[in-house]
């Protein structure tokens, strides 16, 4: 158990809903769900979720903390927004899914090797270097995510697309050497730091129930 996880278990004992409301982006909406099921039925990836959104909301209210936070379900969300568009109560379901995934990751409870999580981490790490996404490096790191052999295989398979992108100047091979950057890198870092402070403050604002 990570320290933060221990601390949160202590703080929100038996009130997972309150914990979600305090710590998860848009989490205060969870209690508004009336269990109609439209989100679950509308999700194009629905059949592949262990627990569709409607069920996650019920599990949160039922206090099933470990099952929810360790679930791979919310990582399946592709942000198509079908659920938000159709929810009769206008719950920001997509955002709640991302909020839950993010929170689970912070607590160290997200399922190991969850591919969406791994990719998200790579995206973030990539972005943090220069303030701009380095697509060449991001693409390659994605190919090699599951080891060298698979990486080479995937690279060969994608070769023609890669060459096409180079030819049409959609991708620059020079990106391999550092890559382009935002103009004011230290300003960018300061901005991220400030955002992290704001988030920490938002979380700290909620007192123990």
């Amino acid at each position: 158990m990570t320290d933060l996880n221990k601390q949160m278990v202590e703080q929100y004992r038996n009130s997972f809903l309150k914990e979600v409301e305090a710590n998860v982006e848009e989490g205060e909406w969870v209690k508004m769900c009336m269990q109609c099921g439209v989100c679950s039925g509308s999700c194009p990836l629905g059949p592949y979720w262990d627990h569709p959104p409607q069920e996650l909301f019920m599990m949160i209210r039922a206090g099933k903390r470990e099952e929810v936070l360790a679930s791979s379900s919310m990582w399946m969300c592709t942000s198509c927004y079908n659920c938000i568009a159709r929810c009769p109560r206008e719950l920001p379901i997509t955002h709640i899914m991302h909020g839950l995934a993010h929170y689970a990751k912070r607590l160290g409870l997200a399922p190991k090797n969850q591919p969406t999580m791994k990719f998200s981490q790579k995206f973030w790490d990539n972005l943090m270097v220069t303030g701009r996404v380095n697509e060449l490096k991001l693409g390659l790191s994605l190919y090699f995510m599951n080891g060298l052999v698979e990486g080479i295989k995937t690279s060969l398979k994608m070769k023609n697309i890669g060459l096409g992108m180079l030819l049409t100047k959609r991708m620059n091979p020079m990106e391999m050497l550092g890559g382009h950057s935002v103009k004011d890198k230290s300003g960018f870092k300061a901005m991220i730091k400030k955002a992290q402070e704001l988030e920490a403050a938002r979380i700290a604002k909620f007192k123990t129930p």
Partner: protein
Amino acid sequence: MTDVVATNETILVVGGGVSGMTAALEAAEAGKQVILVEKRAYVGGRVTQLYKYFPKLCFPTCGLEINQRRVKGNPNVTVLTMAEVSKLEGNAGNYSATIKISPRFVNSNCTACGDCERAVSAEYPDDYNYGMNKHKGAYRPYRMAYPERFVIDPRMIGTPDADKAKAACKYGAVDLNMKEEVLTLKVGAVIFATGWTPYDAAKIQPYGYDRFPNVISSVEFERMKDISGPTGGKVLRPSDGKEAKDIAFIQCAGSRDRNYLKHCSRICCMASLKQTTYVSEIEGGNSTIYYIDIRAIDRFEDFYQKVQADPKVKFIKSKPANITQDKDGNPIVNGVNTEGYHRYATAHDLVVLAVGMEPSIKGAMPEGVKITVNEHGFIENDGSNGGIFAAGCASDALDVNRAVQSATASALKAIQVINRVAGMEG
């Protein structure tokens, strides 16, 4: 010219459905002068379009007939049909109402013999049956229509058919030169009993009402069961005319949904439960109700329990996500069942959308005085409305029983205004 006497001791009732008729009769039977203004060519409102009434499952024609007789026999009530209030000005005890009467092209000589109808061939979509069939250019709006007088469709005016209708009438009742009339009446109190309109199901895009012929609305389903209705009392699939046996009902089609109508329309659960009894009457008929939760309000719980006990009715706790259609035109209902979170995709012969109620006055308020409505468009019985009151579905989504109670209450409020006026003058 229509000759109407009105004073500031007269009560104006706008809308002649079951609520408007009740309010008018209660006030008239208490000795007040009442003018009842109805937009349609006949009184009775939406109740005339129902096959049976919950909870007793009797035919609404019976109660309607009693009310029509009371109106006919009471000299205190003046009924104006094909009439609307376009402007309302003034304040409690002293209103001026502008009333627009559309031409019927048939005068009071009409004996309802039907010769004009037989003489013409032009046909127009029949609003009474929600456009599911057509009526002739000269027609009786429905079999029990009161006033018992034919109507000439204005679209037929100026065509040779109109002249044929005139020539066929032995009583000189067809008057093709009738014009729109505008009356200005002085009244002391006004009761809005303008009722409801079914929510436009085509707006609920995922359910495909506008794309799939075998997805219909609950009000259309009522019309199918009428022996003299567009399908002769049979539940037939619009796509191929086959008798539907496996029928799905989808609750909250438009209601309790911030994308459509935010309010609960309250009667739709009972309407669908009632409609399953129509299906169970069909040889081999069975129903499936898809619902969020069943709101059989108040004492209707026992009706719900009776339907639950019917093995031909299945309940699925789920608001369907969408409807698709298979190659045979069967609508497929898709969603996830809240009881177990199982995914389903079930084909039915016919899907009935339990559409919500919208106040029909929404967007159709007369000019002049400002009338306070709630966030859903229903008229509030609010002090700021002075001598203006709401009855029945103009005030909220109600069943007939509650609509009539609210009508009686509004009649009493209106009588109090009139008594104040009379007291001041007497």
